[in-house]
């Protein structure tokens, strides 16, 4: 089963490498990993999607806590969250007619064209990964020349703060 983890980490050089190393060394499969700044300079935030059973995911969380630079880890899989991913899709578009078709399609998904050339357009779309997968399916018949996805970022709904919504798992779990 897919799990979404949110990790707050110290903004130190090498922290991404430590996390990535841990996953490969322990044989955990990362489906997606994003990292970026948070509301404070000192910390970065990672959203990690992994595939595994409950015991495996618990082990991942405990191993993450052993990294000195990792401050907090939450499994938000069962929480009500907003999940978003951004995709840029360059689609083959040989004529003005197809360009209009693609623009209409994009609009249905609240996407838009962000670049236009004589025989190609770039579609920008945002959503959870299901939505991105769906528009990809719709665009595929036109011919996708290239595509890039950011990977999922996630935030718990409501007033509670994501990285503190963990099920009682406190940082004293650090080894």
């Amino acid at each position: 089963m897919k799990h979404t983890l949110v990790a707050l980490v110290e903004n130190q050089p090498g922290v991404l490498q430590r996390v990535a190393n841990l996953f490969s060394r322990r044989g955990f499969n990362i489906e997606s990993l994003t990292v970026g700044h948070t509301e404070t300079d000192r910390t970065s935030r990672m959203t990690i999607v992994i595939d595994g059973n409950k015991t495996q995911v618990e082990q991942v969380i405990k191993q993450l806590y052993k990294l000195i630079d990792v401050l907090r880890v939450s499994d938000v899989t069962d929480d009500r969250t907003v999940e978003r991913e951004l995709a840029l899709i360059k689609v083959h578009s040989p004529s003005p007619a197809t360009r209009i078709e693609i623009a209409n399609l994009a609009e249905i998904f609240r996407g838009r064209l962000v670049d236009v050339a004589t025989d190609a357009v770039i579609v920008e779309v945002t959503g959870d990964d299901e939505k991105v997968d769906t528009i990809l399916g719709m665009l595929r018949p036109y011919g996708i020349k290239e595509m890039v996805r950011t990977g999922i970022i996630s935030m718990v709904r409501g007033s509670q703060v994501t990285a503190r919504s963990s099920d009682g798992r406190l940082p004293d779990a650090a080894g």
Partner: protein
Amino acid sequence: MQRLTGSQILCESLLKEGVDTIFGMPGGAIIPLYDTLFQYPFRHVLCRHEQGASHMADGYARITGKVGVCLGTSGPGATNLVTGIATAMMDSVPMVAITGQVPTYMIGKDAFQETDTTGITMPITKHNYLVMDVNDLARVIKEAFHIARTGRPGPVLIDIPKDVTTNTAVYEYPGRVHLPGFRPRMQGHTRQIRQAARLIESAKRPLIIAGHGVILSGAFSELRAFAEKTQVPVLTTLLGISAFPETHPLYLGWPGMHGMYYANMAISHTDCLIAIGMRMDDRVTGRLNAFAPHAQVIHIDIDPAELGKNVPAAVPIVGDAKHVLEALTDEVASGHHPDWMQTLAQWRIEHPSLALPEKPETMSSPWIVRELYHATEGKAVLVTDVGQAQMWAAQHYFFDRPNTHVTSGGLGPMGYALPAAIGVQIGKPEEEVWCVTGDGGFQMTLEELSILVEERLPVKIALFNNNFLGMVRQWQQLFFDKRYSGVKMWNPDFVKLGEAYSIPSMRVKDVDDVRRAIDWARDIDGPAMIEFVVEAEENVFPMVPPGASLQETIESAEDVAPKMQQVAVAAGSDAGGV
């Protein structure tokens, strides 16, 4: 304000951390550091290979409980340290490894003796640092020592570019660390401890297995008090040996691949396994799905990631062994288990795994270890290598005094014993230290013999020479139809070799001379080496074949064929253990 160079900051900070001994070797990138080191009151032990330095720091740390410090230059100096750092990581040994690095402006340019040391050591350190600014150095050293010794101990590496050692900064050693992501839990959870106590009280066949964590937390008297109050028999792991007196009536030996038959049976029949400061290593558990099949497991460890990693725990307790055992002993009621003790005693009588003849006809290694035990009255510290000699020493020497058995358990690096024994002797000059090794392992780090002379260390070396890589040969005999592939060794004249290093050395080929040789070595005021030319194809038994369960312990070579067939059937796809 006073400005110091990076080298001075390092030396001042090491003094503040109570460091008195540094094991290392200089090189291009750390010449400025060595120039400063020369002016400070450290005992610097000049290894002959940096692997030696890392094992020395490891031995020193294990015996003293202090953080061991090793030092190497950039590039090859750092890569040579790697084996010892990985050893310390696997066995939770507190260590700070300091490496030189090429100057900051040359990093990434493939400079002479440049290597990505923090990259290489990331998976084998508890944490590591590349210090790019001399202003960070004091804080980093403070953090490194704190991380190395706090919680589950481990190695921390500090990589220091050459210009950082010569640049200057205002020096002020921080009074405390700020590490919000590192707050190990020492006290066990009260509710869990209560739950554990109730489980122990209701158990019919309870069993303790104590690991290295008991030694690391110094919980010797706490473990003893707990076992005596509850009257629960005690096993240790290999690394837990000497956590509990081995001649104590409640002591039952150690289980696992070369553990005692009755210890393996005890695990297979216990209804309540109390695992303390151990990590359910595969050498202990055998085939996992048949490990302790009737037991509810109470697992106490300071590292939460060990709880449930290999064996599910009915009651997991995160905490330091000393604290948890104290609380648990207070909470639990006294107990006694006469039927269970009777069963265990019966197994011991029927399968006396450690029985030896009064005197064998040939040079039998286990018997020689037992002679060493008698000659030293069990009072020596044994530092053992990896392989057959290691197993025989662990089996046939009985350790009553806390923390007197030093060996590498997790990584299993051949060549560990001699440099580790050097670190142990330096850490405890008053102890009688024996390095127990084989001809294979000894030749991996024998260059450190010089240190025994240079540093005047009275380490005694018991070299078991069977002209084989004995443990691999044993596997090839038992499981590969005796196809001896890459295990036969031509060896030098070890007596001449010892003498070339000015170390009194003696060869023993006859059983009648064993005791005399041991007495001879003990009488020498300084190092000595005995080469025991032992029976070439002697095997370590009992043995749990790779992929087998503890119930399938074999006690002789004749047992192998029928047992292995059962194992293959029972294990299915799980049989491919290492």
